[in-house]
């Protein structure tokens, strides 16, 4: 029970501080507010300010419990002095019809109880318990920002994670989830107030319930995710725009939307378009500037830490070794078409009633979404559609169900405006009943991600947290195993994610950053026949005096070509004259494009490492060595793997005092002997890369060889639980 209190305190303190900052901001905005919207908007408008404060504390590495408590107390004291706690005489909004007052009140109260209980339960959501809170926990341990080069998600904007951090300091994981839940619950109220403001109270109430009771919104909004907060904040931007709020406030909220999720930054287009329509250019500039300033910490941090302000995206624009272009290319394709989705015609049913392929479902009510087009007859409907279209636009980049969350409130609103008014209470009530955990199971079979129960015993910690998590969360016990059996400075390479927020050890999941991919590549070079250094490409040329040699890629496979996704790699580049290798001298200079960081790996004498383009092959890529003086050369040998059939190469040489010129075309390839100690060499490279342990699951592709040949690899199993095995590198 004391843990439950700390959870409530952590979340409550965060919401209260945001509200207090918002009260002070709204006072200065001189926005005329009604009683019903004043506190709601205070919380939402204060959230970006609190988030910015925590961001500044992170940058100053000043995140200590006492500092958070003191800063919070200072905020509350300032707000008290500013009169934020004083009762104000505010006019009420137009009253809701009686039916809706009762229906909305009853459903909202019921769902609030369910949501708070669900959010208070130990956090077990896949992304929440792994990276959202894993990164928050890392910041908390390090008292501020840290360059986390083992997790690309650390480079996403983290506006909400800053609020999570404030709550985490006191209530840990569940307090963070409860903060997200506060946004989830604020949104239906905001939609209701918007309806009241816009002279469509029934539509506002119905739309609020449509969103609130959706199974996906419930499970996401009660986890340590960000989507419901994004939906809430983008709706607030539209609300403030329509309420004629000062441009700086709308801009701050728009910038905060970007700080919550990159794609939510599109919402700034709404006020910009509305203001441009009215030719209010100065206000446009203020909105834009305020949004840029609020969003600025994240590109700035990314540029300083990762060399790419848009990390983990746009890696070709800002090349860096934190995220490989090849990863981004694959990831973007994957997100556009999830496994099992063969046609976009599958989307309507997957998004509304199935949800297994797209990670959740909105409920059968949303099959009526096309009716929302009827709302275009009304001015309010057109505004709602404008916002909906702006926020749905990025959906094509990731078709997961929850990526519709920012647009969902507007779709809900359009539906409520388009449907016949007498049908709305019935539809809202049916949707509400149908969304209660776990009613969907009764009428939809076993659909996708949703709340399966109302875990009140776990929420109140009447049931032991660790036992509950061990039962509910795959990988939780593995995280605890890592915590128990490794030293504090351990770096654990894993092939798949675990709930890393439950361990203080650094987990490097194979695909989650450039560094991890490079580490994993060492392992794979020894593991997979096609990736082993077993091919030698030999350029033979007439003996020449050269100052350098360069191997250039000449093939650019067309889209759809079977070799389109090939990456280019070279394990070793060796230069010969009359059969004798030219020794690599300290005066040599080696370079590559792309991936200049990896060029030394082709000259390190290790068959376990290789320079890789880490970008799909295209003509013009090269790897080169300059000798610093003229050397006689008649042969260049490239030790390569057999996993790059699309690669076509050309040898260029640098004549003394001259430029680069072509010396030869695609070289013949022959077999090379694979070192039998390659496994051990790979593990030595992992050790050199900082890895101390390997965490494998029996379902991992590497499990069979690594477990069977553990001694040959030079690893020793030190513990196992739930099909996870922890190995120490020897």
């Amino acid at each position: 029970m004391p843990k439950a209190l700390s959870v409530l305190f952590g979340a409550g303190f965060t919401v209260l501080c945001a509200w207090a900052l918002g009260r002070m901001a709204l006072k200065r905005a001189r926005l005329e507010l009604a009683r019903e919207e004043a506190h709601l908007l205070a919380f939402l408008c204060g959230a970006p300010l609190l988030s910015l404060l925590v961001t500044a504390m992170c940058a100053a590495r000043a995140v200590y419990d006492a500092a958070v408590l003191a800063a919070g107390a200072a905020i509350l004291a300032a707000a008290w002095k500013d009169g934020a706690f004083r009762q104000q005489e505010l006019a009420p909004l137009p009253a809701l019809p009686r039916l809706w007052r009762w229906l909305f009140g009853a459903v909202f109260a019921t769902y609030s109880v369910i949501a708070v209980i669900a959010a208070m339960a130990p956090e077990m959501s896949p992304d929440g318990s792994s990276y959202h809170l894993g990164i928050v926990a890392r910041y908390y341990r390090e008292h501020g920002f840290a360059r986390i080069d083992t997790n690309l998600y650390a480079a996403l904007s983290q506006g909400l994670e800053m609020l999570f951090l404030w709550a985490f300091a006191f209530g840990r994981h569940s307090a963070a989830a409860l903060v997200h839940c506060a946004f989830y619950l604020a949104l239906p109220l905001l939609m209701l107030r918007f309806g009241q403001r816009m002279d469509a109270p029934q539509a506002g109430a119905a739309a609020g319930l449509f969103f609130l009771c959706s199974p996906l919104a419930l499970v996401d909004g009660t986890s340590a995710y960000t989507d419901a907060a994004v939906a809430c904040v983008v709706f607030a931007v539209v609300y403030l725009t329509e309420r004629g709020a000062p441009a700086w406030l709308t801009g701050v909220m728009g910038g905060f939307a970007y700080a919550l999720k990159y794609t939510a930054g599109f919402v700034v287009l709404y006020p910009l378009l509305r203001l441009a329509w009215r030719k209010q250019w100065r206000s446009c500039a203020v909105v834009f500037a305020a949004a840029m300033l609020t969003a600025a910490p994240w590109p700035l941090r990314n540029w300083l830490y990762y060399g790419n302000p848009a990390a983990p995206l746009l890696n070709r624009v800002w090349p860096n070794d934190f995220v490989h272009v090849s990863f981004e290319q694959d990831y973007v394709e994957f997100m556009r078409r999830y496994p099992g989705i063969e046609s976009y015609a599958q989307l309507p049913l997957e998004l509304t009633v199935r949800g297994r392929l797209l990670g959740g479902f909105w409920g059968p009510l949303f099959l009526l979404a096309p009716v929302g087009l009827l709302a275009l007859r009304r001015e309010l409907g057109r505004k709602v559609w404008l916002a909906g279209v702006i926020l749905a636009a990025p959906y094509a980049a990731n078709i997961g169900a929850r990526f519709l969350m920012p647009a969902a409130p507007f779709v809900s609103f359009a539906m409520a405006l388009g449907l016949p008014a007498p049908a709305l209470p019935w539809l809202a009530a049916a949707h509400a009943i149908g969304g209660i955990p776990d009613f969907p199971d009764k009428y939809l079979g076993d659909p996708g991600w949703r709340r399966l129960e109302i875990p009140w015993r776990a929420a109140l910690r009447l049931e032991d947290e660790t036992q509950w998590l061990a039962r509910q969360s795959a990988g939780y016990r593995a995280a605890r195993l890592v915590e128990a059996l490794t030293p504090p400075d351990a770096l654990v390479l894993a092939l798949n994610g675990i709930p890393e927020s439950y361990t203080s050890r650094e987990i490097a999941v194979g695909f989650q950053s450039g560094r991890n991919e490079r580490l994993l590549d060492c392992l794979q070079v020894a593991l997979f026949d096609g990736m082993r250094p077993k091919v030698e490409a030999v350029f033979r040329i007439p003996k020449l005096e050269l100052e350098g040699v360069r191997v250039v890629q000449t093939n650019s496979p067309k889209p759809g070509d079977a070799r389109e996704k090939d990456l280019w790699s070279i394990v070793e580049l060796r230069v010969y004259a009359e059969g004798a290798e030219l020794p690599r001298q300290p005066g040599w200079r080696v370079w590559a494009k792309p991936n200049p960081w990896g060029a030394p790996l082709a000259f390190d004498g290790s068959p376990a490492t290789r320079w890789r383009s880490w970008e799909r092959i295209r003509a013009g890529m090269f790897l080169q060595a300059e000798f610093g003086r003229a050397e006689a050369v008649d042969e260049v040998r490239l030790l390569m793997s057999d996993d790059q059939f699309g690669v076509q190469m050309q040898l260029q040489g640098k004549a003394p005092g001259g430029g680069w010129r072509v010396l030869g075309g695609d070289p013949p390839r022959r077999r090379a002997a694979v070192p039998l100690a390659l496994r051990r060499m790979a593990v030595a490279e992992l050790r050199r890369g900082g890895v101390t342990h390997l965490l494998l699951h029996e379902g991992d592709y590497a499990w069979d060889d690594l477990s069977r040949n553990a001694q040959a690899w030079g690893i020793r199993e030190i513990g196992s639980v739930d099909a996870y095995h922890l190995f120490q590198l020897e």
Partner: protein
Amino acid sequence: MPRSGQDPAVKPAPCIPAVFLAALCGCARLPGPVPPPAQPAPAGPPAHYALLWEPWAEERIVEGIDKEIHDDWRWAGRRAVLRFRLEETRGVQFEAILVVPEELVRAGARRIEVRIGGRLLGEIPAGRAGYQAWKQPVPEDWIEPGKDVTAELTADAEWLQGKQRRTYMLSSAGFTL
């Protein structure tokens, strides 16, 4: 250019993102050319594998393989024996890469037996002409690290090229992963 009557204060707004992006684009931090890393001691030819186009492959050949190198292969006799030494014996396989000529098939060949340390590891099918990359895991207890082991490839037929007895063209053989 601002038109008359427009507030110049608002004109730079559309330029801000372009300037910001251009400035940041110019700040991509790419490393320049660097010296090669410290070099390990040069390793000699591998003792666990024979690339038969290399002169040093002679050291692996015990008997039954021609001295003459043709491009990247040599003729193997009916019984070819190679000697290897392995530094790692766990999780290794024996591999032979060869081409079976039509003549050998016509001579009635069916298989090439592979023996490691005298024990039968398997048979390379030789009933069809063409390229063969044959690989088979070797039991760990058949080989000892640091000790010589012989690999014996015995064809069940041979043919005459002039006065020379021929079987197949062996490109490489030895232990691998």
